[in-house]
């Protein structure tokens, strides 16, 4: 019997954040800090022949590739992104150098007067040059040759900008000879590694400390590594504190975003209209450098059959190199793109076969013991049916669906089912991350533990602490758990991939349990607990075969919309969601994740429009790239169904990204009912809805 962890506790950072006492990077007062401003390339692709720097007043510096200490490489998963563009620039706005000085106003003038001579090459903006290709099969795709019918469609999704409310910011200073970083970030050890790599310095010469972080959503997973490598190159020369903070337009224009995608799906049907199998290709626009795009592509492909199971599959995907700002992590990490495609495809296929869409989809829903698309096994109990029933009951789905099916209702209600693999792909947790957690106790019984997990709003500082407090069964104020500091913390891995509670939470529980077992009053004790993954996880990244994740979280979204026939504006009337996140720890925090994730997904689906033209974004301000306001979001209802996961802390699974992946297909399903047209592309802006409604097909 599990204790009831659904109840909520006071968040440890609430009071500081509400009262304005929380110190974010830009709030840190440091005397003598110099401003560092990027000098950016002005062409999409070409040779940088020479950079012309104006005469610099005393106390001002220009730092560029010439100043690189060891490697002009930013350590990301694939380290093809240089710290400073050197011989070539691959996208407009790439940083060629930094102007650094005490007066920001003067720095701005110096940046404006710095320019380069280029030899321009022909840029590529469309998805045509693949730099990562992956493919795998399930069953026997040669059976496709015997198909009686083939049904094919293409789906597209757009860019999405994270719009964390706090823009990218970093302060770097020397503490003795140690480079010390305080920044708005997700992954302290990524920054740590990036600095060590470009400088070729020892690990103990760099320290990364996390201040309060104002939202991240994936956008602060990799980009801060680039900023850190740039500032580190500068600080070695200048030896003064450096501060780099982006204005909003700069953040929107030049930092990483969600990958746009194009997915093609073909269903091969037998003469009884049963699906023999699917052929799926997912293409994502990675921008100028690969960075983490190969992993985004991998996750997109693993998610490409979503909650359905098919005997035979031929899956492939490409990440394409384009001369645009590199795309990188954003909540969902590739899976929202392919899940949008398959959800809409299954629905359209049902339409093509003239059968009820929901019944058709239900026929192919995965069950416990089914084989995943990568030929692994869904081992844990799958409770999709109860999740659907509950969401339908909450939303009065059946009545509304029926009512809105009358022509001209201009209303619709849509449903999606979805899953999200928790933690790093495959055996990555045990082979790449190797999280280790340090927990110690002093003579007075005060327990201190450290993780490298950043709380940028998800509430994990509260939840991880609670796991340790409850496991040890000691008062809350006997446990100290501060924000990450690489001098004190062993790496428990990045704050990404919905791994914090399922992986690190589990590790916290285990470490605390071990401490409890060896607890001796009045003694100092310390434990270093390594992560040990479930032994059944076997994964081959090259062939994309095996168990892709240690566990899966599941969900259902229902979205109700109305379309104005005069202005083609879409209004969301309500959302109802149910989730299986294992055993829910702290429902208040989880509802926050659920509503917030869904709101971002809905924004992506119909409102947030980021278009690149000639390699640059057209929407570069918050008045042009609009995110939902409180008036655009409807009343949201959320429920959780308990389904404890044996390997997570107290049965918990991941929840952060799960809440994003189903929003777009549910909204698009509702929109299709409202207007009686197929929606194969998002965002479904009023401009696009107008095209659809006026299209006489």
């Amino acid at each position: 019997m599990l204790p009831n962890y659904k109840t909520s506790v006071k968040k440890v950072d609430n009071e500081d954040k509400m009262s304005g006492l929380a110190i974010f990077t830009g709030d840190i007062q440091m005397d003598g800090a110099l401003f560092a401003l990027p000098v950016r390339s002005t062409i999409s692709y070409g040779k940088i022949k020479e950079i012309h720097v104006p005469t610099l007043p005393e106390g001002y510096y220009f730092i560029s590739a010439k100043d690189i200490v060891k490697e002009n490489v930013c350590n990301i998963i694939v380290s093809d992104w240089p710290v400073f563009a050197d011989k070539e620039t691959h996208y407009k706005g790439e940083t060629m150098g930094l102007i650094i000085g005490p007066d920001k106003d003067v720095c701005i003038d110096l940046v404006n007067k710095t320019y380069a001579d280029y030899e321009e090459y022909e840029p590529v903006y469309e998805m045509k040059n693949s730099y990562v290709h992956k493919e795998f099969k399930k069953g026997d795709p040669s059976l496709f040759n015997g198909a009686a019918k083939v049904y094919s469609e293409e789906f597209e999704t757009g860019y999405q900008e994270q719009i964390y409310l706090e823009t990218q910011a970093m302060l770097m200073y020397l503490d003795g000879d140690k480079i010390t970083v305080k920044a708005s970030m997700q992954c302290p050890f990524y920054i740590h590694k990036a600095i060590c790599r470009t400088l070729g310095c020892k690990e103990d010469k760099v320290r990364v400390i996390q201040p309060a972080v104002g939202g991240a959503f994936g956008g602060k997973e990799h980009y801060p590594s680039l900023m850190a490598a740039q500032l580190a190159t500068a600080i070695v020369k200048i030896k003064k504190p450096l501060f780099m903070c982006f204005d909003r337009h700069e953040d929107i224009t030049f930092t990483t975003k969600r990958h746009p995608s194009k997915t093609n799906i073909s269903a091969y049907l037998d003469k009884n209209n049963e699906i023999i199998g699917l052929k799926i290709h997912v293409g994502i626009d990675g921008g100028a450098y690969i960075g983490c795009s190969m992993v985004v592509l991998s996750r997109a492909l693993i998610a490409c059959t979503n909650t359905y199971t098919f005997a035979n599959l031929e899956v492939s995907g490409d990440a394409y190199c384009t001369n645009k700002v590199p795309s990188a992590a954003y909540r969902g990490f590739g899976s929202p793109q392919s899940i949008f495609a398959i959800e809409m495809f299954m629905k359209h296929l049902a339409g093509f076969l003239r059968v009820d869409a929901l019944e058709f989809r239900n026929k192919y829903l995965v069950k416990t013991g089914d084989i995943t698309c990568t030929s692994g096994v869904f081992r844990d109990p799958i409770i999709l049916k109860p999740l659907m029933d509950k969401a339908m009951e909450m939303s009065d789905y059946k009545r509304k669906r029926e009512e809105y099916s009358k022509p001209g209702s201009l209303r619709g209600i849509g449903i999606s089912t979805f899953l999200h693999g928790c933690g790093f792909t495959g055996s990555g947790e045990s082979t790449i991350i190797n999280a280790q957690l340090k927990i110690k106790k002093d003579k007075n019984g005060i327990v201190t533990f450290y993780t490298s997990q950043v709380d940028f709003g998800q509430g994990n500082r509260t939840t991880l602490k609670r796991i340790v407090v409850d496991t040890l069964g000691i008062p809350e104020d006997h446990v100290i758990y501060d924000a990450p500091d690489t001098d004190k913390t062993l790496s428990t891995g990045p704050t990404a991939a919905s791994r914090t509670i399922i992986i690190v939470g589990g590790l916290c529980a285990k470490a605390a349990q071990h401490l409890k077992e060896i607890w001796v009053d009045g003694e100092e004790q310390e434990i270093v607990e390594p992560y040990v993954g479930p032994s059944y996880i076997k994964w081959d990244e090259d062939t994309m075969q095996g168990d892709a994740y240690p566990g899966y979280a599941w969900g259902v979204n229902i979205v109700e919309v109305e379309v104005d026939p005069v202005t083609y504006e879409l209004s969301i009337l309500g959302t109802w969601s149910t989730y299986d996140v294992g055993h829910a720890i702290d429902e208040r925090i989880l509802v926050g994740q659920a509503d917030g994730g869904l709101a971002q997904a809905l924004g992506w689906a119909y409102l947030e429009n980021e278009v690149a033209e000639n390699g640059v974004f057209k929407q570069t301000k918050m008045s042009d790239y609009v995110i939902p306001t409180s008036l655009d979001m409807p009343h949201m209802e959320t429920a959780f169904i308990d389904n404890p996961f044996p390997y997570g802390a107290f049965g918990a699974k991941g929840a952060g990204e799960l809440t994003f992946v189903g929003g777009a297909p549910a909204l698009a399903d509702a929109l299709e009912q409202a207007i009686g047209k197929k929606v194969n592309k998002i965002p479904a802006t009023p401009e696009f809805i107008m095209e659809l409604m006026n299209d006489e097909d």
Partner: protein
Amino acid sequence: MKINFKLNGSNVTVDVVPSKRLLDVLREDLHLTGTKEGCGEGECGACTVLVDNRPINSCIAPIANIANKEVITIEGFRETKAYRVIADAFADMGGSQCGFCTPGMILATYAVLRDNPHPTEEEARIALSGNLCRCTGYQAIVNAVLKASEKGIKL
């Protein structure tokens, strides 16, 4: 140019160019960093402060327009009873996640409840529509406004 105004109950004088943004005066000259900058163009409301008891965006307010007025920032507001009620409601309903919008959101909530002590959910949404939040999807914040309304902010 010397500009006088009342800040969180005390008189202050700053000697700055009249076009300087109130936000920069607060953060740079007066070291009050509870007021945040999210966009610099009056869109996000993270920089909300009260001027003569009305919420404004300090990121687009020239300090010249603040002369002789009364400014309340989160640093001053957090000392009030109304703050306690609102902050407790935010904590109860999960209205703060990353916290960057929160000081502005709390001041905006105060302004709503002062003008309309018992707003409907829709009225609360309208009143907060200039304060953007990317974490919560707004439901928790709206719930917090309604919760604080139940308790009453006791002005």
